[in-house]
């Protein structure tokens, strides 16, 4: 694993020592090279994991997320070039350094063996993200957004620290590979419920669960494009990844503790999708759609069937790429009109047809069109939810329809119809932007061919 971590750390001196005209180029190219180095990790055993050292391991669950993380760094750097153009050289380098630092922590989080190391790095990802959101966000609301982001996540995860330390003293070890064997289901006492809550709330806040999702629209909307991308694509998946790892320890309490969270997720999924239909702010629409998709992931993880775990993993990877792509598309609108209001930049198909192609593909994957991997995720989750409870199909079906509704609403408002009268201000698409969209879409579409990679440990 060091062959990925050390080069990523070395990206920081690379950034600071580059000449002013080579900063973006160097960091983008070398972070792409690092993501190529990450690819051999895909060579997994089907019933075991690659135990690379005492500290790091990778199995079929962490590898797709790790790939997503390393793939996303060059994309973030490409996306940030426009709005960082006017800043001084030191600030540009500082921005890239924050992204690289976040990348280092994320790589270490996804490959951590010990749960407390996972926890420390999970918390460590908050600091660079806070700095990216608060320092380089656009509006004054970003201060509030940063505080909400930091404190929601911390308040949820501090009980997790206590629970992890307690479990270590009772179980003896928190090595992820061992706990599935060490933890035995026992007779339930009510303190177990509190312990379960302590474990799960941290990840629920991160996902986010519907009642605890207040930080997400703020943070996603106020963050600059790189911040939005990394938040939507990876940081939410940290919650899902944590939940998937920890549920190995949580029987049998989970069998009844899950009901409140299932209810919140089922209802929240429909609620947040419905809110998307009434949004005027484009980024806010995409942020709420993230909450909706992640509610599906939460439900899938809570019911703990093999199909649902496969669906959760696939949905996490697919949603990561799709959501990040949508944010990049929204950002291309923002760069042109300097406003996030959807109706200000409508009818774009007549002016930017290639961008419309990307919008179309992004919207199609967002509404889980077959045979995209989004569909695989949602389908597996829906089927396993149906087997858990027949009635849930009603809400799930409603959600799928509303997802299609708001996605098409977003597509039609921005692309179709008559263009606005201030249209002459809109510059044509840069090659950089088209590259960015293609680099998002290519994995998304290619994974259709072999979805086994993203189906996780239960395949």
């Amino acid at each position, binding site marked *: 694993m060091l062959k990925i971590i050390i080069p990523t750390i070395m990206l920081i001196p690379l950034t600071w020592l580059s000449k002013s005209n080579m900063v973006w180029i160097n960091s983008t190219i070398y972070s792409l090279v690092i993501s190529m180095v990450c690819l051999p990790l895909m060579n997994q055993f089907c019933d075991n994991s690659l135990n690379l050292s005492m500290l790091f391991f990778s199995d079929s669950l962490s590898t797709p997320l790790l790939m997503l993380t390393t793939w996303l760094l060059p994309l973030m750097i490409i996306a940030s070039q426009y709005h960082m153009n006017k800043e001084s050289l030191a600030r540009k380098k500082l921005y890239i350094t924050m992204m690289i630092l976040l990348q280092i922590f994320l790589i270490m989080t996804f490959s951590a063996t010990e749960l407390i190391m996972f926890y420390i790095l999970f918390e460590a990802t908050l600091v660079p993200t806070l700095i990216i959101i608060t*320092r380089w966000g656009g509006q*004054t609301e970003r201060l509030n957004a940063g505080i909400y982001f930091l404190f929601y996540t911390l308040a949820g995860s501090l009980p997790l620290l206590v629970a992890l330390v307690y479990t270590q003293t009772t179980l003896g070890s928190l090595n992820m590979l061992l706990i599935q064997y060490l933890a035995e289901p026992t007779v339930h006492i009510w303190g177990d419920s509190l312990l379960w809550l302590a474990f799960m709330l941290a990840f629920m806040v991160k996902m986010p669960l519907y009642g605890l999702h207040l930080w997400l629209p703020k943070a996603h909307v106020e963050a600059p494009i790189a911040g939005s991308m990394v938040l939507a694509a990876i940081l939410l998946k940290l919650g899902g990844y944590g939940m998937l790892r920890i549920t190995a320890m949580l029987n049998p309490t989970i069998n009844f503790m899950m009901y409140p969270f299932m209810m919140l997720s089922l209802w929240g999924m429909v609620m947040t999708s419905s809110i998307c239909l009434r949004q005027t702010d484009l980024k806010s629409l995409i942020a709420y759609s993230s909450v909706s998709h992640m509610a599906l992931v939460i439900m899938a993880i809570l019911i703990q069937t093999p199909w649902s775990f496969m669906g959760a993993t696939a949905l996490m990877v697919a949603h990561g790429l799709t959501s990040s792509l949508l944010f990049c598309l929204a950002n291309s609108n923002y760069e042109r009109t300097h406003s996030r209001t959807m109706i200000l930049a409508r009818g774009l198909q007549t002016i930017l047809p290639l961008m419309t192609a990307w919008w179309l593909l992004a919207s199609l994957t967002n509404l889980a069109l077959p045979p995209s991997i989004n569909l695989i995720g949602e389908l597996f989750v829906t089927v396993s939810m149906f087997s858990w409870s027949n009635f849930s199909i009603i809400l799930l079906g409603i959600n799928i329809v509303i997802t299609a509704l708001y996605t098409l609403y977003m597509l039609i408002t921005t692309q179709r119809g008559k263009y606005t009268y201030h249209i002459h201000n809109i510059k044509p698409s840069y090659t950089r932007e088209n590259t960015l969209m293609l680099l998002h879409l290519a994995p998304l579409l290619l994974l259709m061919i072999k979805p086994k990679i993203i189906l996780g440990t239960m395949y």
Partner: protein
Amino acid sequence: MNPLTLSLVLTTMISGTLIVMTSSHWFMTWVGFEMNMLAIIPLLTKEHNPRSTEAATKYFLTQATASMLLMMAAITNLLYTGHWSIMKLINPTASTMMTMALTMKLGLSPFHFWVPEVTQGIPLMSGLILLTWQKLAPLSVLYMIMPLINTNLLLTMSLMSIAIGGWGGLNQTQLRKIMAYSSIAHMGWMMAILTYNPTMTLLNLYLYIPMTITTFMLLMLSSATTTTSLSHMWNKLPLITMLILITMLSLGGLPPLTGFLPKWAIIQEMTKNNNILLPTLMTLLALLNLYFYTRITYTTSLTMFPTMNNMKIKWQFKNLKQTMQLPLMITISTLILPLAPIMMILE
């Protein structure tokens, strides 16, 4: 201050603390405390204004009361056991009184009222000495009498201190008061673990002192005493704004910075002793502390030019202050979490 006077005062202060640390007779402990207190009074009144005098008076009154309470506790112990030895403070009345005396010296709740007011009235350097060096003597005595302290009393006081340190600092814009409330909260953390595993108390102390020294050194570089004056720093010393950011986050106990290590160690020791609800409460209350540290970083570094700071640009003088020890202190205060296994040498 006249160098001769300064050296005399500092020597007395240091030797007072050393006498406390090395004594085995309660009388010598009292002597050490008194020497320490009397010597620091001139340091508190370095600037001759009424506010400093008020601060020095408040400090003197509380510390003298605490010393008297300490003497009373020692004499109560003498009454019941017949000796002055420090290690054998067996009588519960004496032990409780001694704990209260020492926590009064430390500025633990409910005896915390003097800390913000005294810290506010004195110059930054004296504030630094007050919040770091002055904690050493009482903590060493508490460490020595540790087995005989009433755990319930200490845990109540520490939980109250963490709560008060958190909530008290929320409404402050004066940096010295913020550091005072930070000190109250950190003392609370240190006292919570004292009766379970005093090594962790010492660990917290060894990390709290560098972090506080770093913060004060950063503040002294631009003589900033209010949040407003810190927000001017982006113009004069832009690198320092970044260092304030990470030092504040470290003080707040955010992983992966050093400040997380004592909190983690304390939580671990408390859960090993089956005390689970209390560390949860303590960490959640520590979030209040983190809030006002983050708020400081907002005005200082996270809202830098050109996006927005309403602060006027000041005349830029050449910076002549020495920053020699600063890199070392910054490194200690923020980067030594990976060295956590070295804690083993404290065992």
